[in-house]
């Protein structure tokens, strides 16, 4: 599988995870000073912005942490 395909799959995973969130979620992430809702975050990912790339990365890192058991305890 090419690196490009892997990046596309990562993007799809991040978008699918964001789509599962209620549209009302609000996150400030980065330097624009405001809060993004779900659809604005998805747009950042689809548009390949720097913020979008960071959102993909944090969603993937979260899943990896689950796999490693880092987030398994209370």
């Amino acid at each position, binding site marked *: 599988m090419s690196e490009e395909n892997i990046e596309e799959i990562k993007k799809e995973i991040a978008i699918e995870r964001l789509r599962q*969130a209620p549209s009302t979620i609000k996150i*400030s992430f980065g*330097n624009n000073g405001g*809060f993004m809702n779900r659809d604005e975050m998805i747009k950042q990912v689809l548009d390949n912005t720097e913020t979008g790339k960071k959102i993909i990365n*944090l969603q993937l890192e979260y899943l990896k942490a689950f796999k490693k058991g880092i987030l398994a305890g209370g």
Partner: protein
Amino acid sequence: MACILFSRPADDVTLNYLYYYSKELVNLSNSLGHKTINKEKEKANKNTILSLIINQKPILIMFNGHGSSEVICGHNQEVIVDSKENPEVLKNSITYALACSSALILGLKSIEKNAICFIGYKSDFALGKDPDSEASPRYDKVAKLFLEPSNILVSLLLKGNNVRKSIEKAKEEMMKNIWYLQTTNSFPEAIHYAPFLFSNYSSLVPLGNEDASINND
């Protein structure tokens, strides 16, 4: 008596949250008898903050603000510390930057220039907001989960704990809050905030001397 400097701009919604939450740290610093210098809103500007750092030599500096891998900003996104221009201003201080990504380059440069310790984030700092709070930090149950761990970190530093212990406790609180977000049914967005708080957890790092405290400069 330790000298503590706070830079607290508040010129957009996100910064207003940081401003609100850090107010209790200014009060704590005062109540502990530290020489507390609080520059907020438009007074959190480059000239004022740099002049205070040079003349007052604070042992602990807390910056709220926007940032990047190379800079920390004040009011109106004016760059206060820049890895290419003046990282040496942080020498002999413990700095905590509640700002995006500044641990990546600026933090390292400041350590090269004899900062005692730089505590910051390697990635963008994420802040969740309760959709029902109408941007009122006081009533925002989600923002509290993101910002209280940061306050624990600074509170412990103000009380004389070393950097290592202060970060450890802040991370414990973050993990507790992540677990809460993963398991609570009290609001439907909860679990979807967890990856963002985990990003803060993962990217919070100390650079330099982790044994440092405001008591052993």
